[in-house]
């Protein structure tokens, strides 16, 4: 159970959107939250987090502003925009149906064909 999983290609964006949908967070906070929710089972390359954040902001799905962190330091906080909310919903549905299909295929037993 302690074994860490590598992140599936293209899923980081979705996870970031989900993480900030629960409340505004700074970059490090997003990292911690994803690790916390996944109970440390996901390994996220810290370096790849920021390009993803910038990309999402450029596309208008998240917005940023400077605020104060828990320990009174200036930090950049990200929050979900309305467009981002729709995007997250669409991606979630897409992922769920995809997961169903894949699980269905992988769970097939010989006698079911």
């Amino acid at each position, binding site marked *: 159970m302690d074994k860490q999983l590598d992140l599936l290609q293209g899923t980081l964006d979705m996870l970031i959107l989900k993480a900030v949908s629960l409340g505004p967070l*700074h*970059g*490090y906070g997003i990292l911690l939250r994803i690790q916390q929710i996944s109970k440390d089972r996901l390994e996220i*390359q*810290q*370096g*790849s987090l*920021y*390009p*993803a954040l*910038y*990309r999402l*902001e*450029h*596309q*208008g*799905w998240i917005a940023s502003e400077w605020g104060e*962190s828990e*320990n009174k*330091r*200036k*930090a*950049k906080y990200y929050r979900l925009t309305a*467009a981002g909310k729709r995007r997250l919903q669409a991606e979630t549905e897409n992922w769920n149906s995809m997961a169903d299909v894949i699980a269905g295929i992988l769970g097939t037993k010989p006698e079911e064909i």
Partner: protein
Amino acid sequence: MTLWNRLRSWWRVILHRSCLENEMDAELRFHLEAFAEDLVRSGMARQEAMRRARLEFGGIERTKEECRDARGANLLEALAQDLRYGLRMLRKNPASTAAVVLALALGIGLNTTVFSFVNALLLRPPTGAEAPDKLLQLWLHNRGTSGMEGYLPLTYPDYVYYRDHNQSFTGMLAFDGDPESVIWNRSGEGQVVLGQLVSGNFFSLLGVNASLGRTFLPEDDQPGHPQPVVVLGHSFWQQRLAADPKVVGKSLLLNGTSFTVIGVAPGGFAGLLVAIEPDFWAPVTVAEQILHDAGRLTNRQGYWLFAVGRLKPGVAAPRAGSEVNLLAQLIEKEHPDTNKNLGANLFPATLVPGPYRGFVSAFTGLLMAVFGLVLVIACVNAATLLLARATGRAREMAIRSALGAGRGRLIRQMLVESTLLSGLAGCLGLLLAYWTSPLLLALKPVSLPITLRVPLDWRVLLFTSLVSLSTGIVFGLTPALRSVKVQVAPILKDEAQSASYRKSRLRSSLMIGEIATCMVLLVGAALCVRSLLNANSMDPGFDTKHVAVATLDPGSLGYPEAKVHGFYEQLSRQISALPGVSSASFVNHLPLGTAREQSAAIEGNHSASGQNAVSVDVLRVAPGYFETMGISLLSGRDFLPRESEEPGGTSGGVVIINEAMAEKLWSRQYPVGRRITLGEGTGLGLEIIGVVKTGKYRTLGEDPIPLVYLPRLPGRRTLVVRTSGDPRFLLDTIRREIQAVDANIAATDLETIEQYMALPLFPARTIGLLLGASGILALVLTSIGLFGVISYMVSQRTHEIGVRMALGASQHEVLKLVVGHGLTMASIGLALGLAATFGLARFLSSLLYGIQPSDPATLLGVSVSLIFIASLACYIPARRAMSVDPLVALRYE
């Protein structure tokens, strides 16, 4: 929305580059420190924690770079890099860069020039007028006539009716469509100025305010109480009145009537007609006083007013159109005699009036097409050059793509280079247009009272930028797409040397197309130049060397007939007495001008309305006209002074006819002594007393036209003076003599007959010059292009030629190989061009004098010279091929 977001974020990146960098630094620092603090909290030493944090984060610089990419910040940087690299590449090949830029600059520049004329004539709205898009011009349209001739401007009663009865316009103004030359008596000396009569609401409806004083009020323009007031044109006020600040309230003596200046129009405002800049405006209702033309305002058949209405808010143009048509029907009912079949049409109020726009568009369209072809040639040239260069750069491209440059990046690089070239060419082209526009304007005859402004405004700038940009993309795209198709491995292994030649089929077909286009332009140019030479040498039927002319109109000053007669008599005496003058006479208007009088003639003494009537042109001349103009009298005699004074008609007047007329009516018999009747003339008819040689009367290219000379002249005449010397030295003397006889009178169009002839030759000269220039340009560009392609071919095939020579090929055979390749292309292009010429030449036929569009001598001459120049362009590189040393060529591998 996301697009908008992207743009905004990109914009932020451009504007706040350093801000973004600082934010990125701060954000990443915060991350590292927060991480390190967490590590410290779990018991790690601070120093060690910081190191761990950095280690786990990975490459910070790479992260930053990826962040910049995500933001689109790098796009700009890459573009700047491409630009710098492109500039370096262009500098590396200065000769070919200069050749391409210069060729394109000529193409773009000439197109810009033509477009600036299109803009000045067709696109530019009238300057100074408020909301010109709401202005509509009203034209009467004779349903029985087709084409441009069916359209008529308005009579004054028509204008008043439309103005007072329409519901669609907030107001309707009118102005004199053919501004009048008026004599301004300036302290005893007559000067000719241009005046336009306008309705009282002209300025207020256009929203034009006076720069000094006031403009007209409707009260100034009441029929019955016309106010003798004028508004001065701004440049007239500045140039002729030295910008006198106290000019308002002063009076000017115009055509013998005193007018009070009430204001000065704002600078730049010149009314609503193209190329006309009136010196003053006066109310329409003073027409009868200033023009001494009684009944002008009540005449229902004098069509002279252009009417323009301003649409009421909320009224669409089609509704206004159907309304004026309804009004036209109402007038037709009221005045069936004069307004029969006259409908009404609305056009946007443009500088060139609606009905004439088609004609102007066709002419400028032809020029645009011709110079568009020159630009196409320049483009093909640039494309072949870049193609050659792209092949030469295949190795560079292969290395770049091996190092990881994407396909898009390479194409972008090539396109940046080509648009850089065309952008440079565009700037040069603008400069060229700036110089050539005034040059073209200088072609116009002096006697044409037009002042055309050809500004290089935003429309021209936009046109040039678009043309330059699309040019760059068009000629850059093919080489760019070519260059990324390179196969990396063989090129890097140096195997693709000789294979590349076979790929030049694209270049060859481009070259063939260029030669074909060049052929079309050359034929057009040769035809027009030959037609110009024809027109120049065409005999107009009178002496074009030793005559001075001047137009006089003492009638416009309101002189009674006896005074007019006295003036001309005395003038004639004084001029004839001048040293060097052999004779002087008068004509009502010179042939080949814009004025024309026509009638129907029939043999005998019955009314010439039957079907046997011959349509004839009429000129009215004083005794001595034929001698003065050098028109030979074939039989009979000239008019006598007595005959030009007594009224013709019932007593049986006399006429002189031209040879064409004599042949038409009495093909073989002696006409002198016979009688003809002109028009509705009654009584005994007119006795023919002489026959003169036929000349040209309407256009230089016309077939012989029957013409009748009558001895009686109206008040407005043209003085013709014959001198044995140069008539240029006579002009000042004539001006002084006119002043001496009557100081109030000034001559309009005082010039030599040679200057006068510039008018009928104007179309031929302009077309000849423009097409001639385009043809020469096309030829130069094409030979440069051919030279470039053949030179490139030789340099690519050096190895092959070396092998051939090593195997025993003679220099002669090598020459044949190279020149043969060039000449094959040239011949195919020539054949295609000839085919296209046959299709296109009929567009030219109406512009040509005395030459058929399919003139075999021209076609042959052009073909031969094109082939000759093509072989010359091939010969120089062929010489280089001949001197290839087989040893050197073979050792190269």
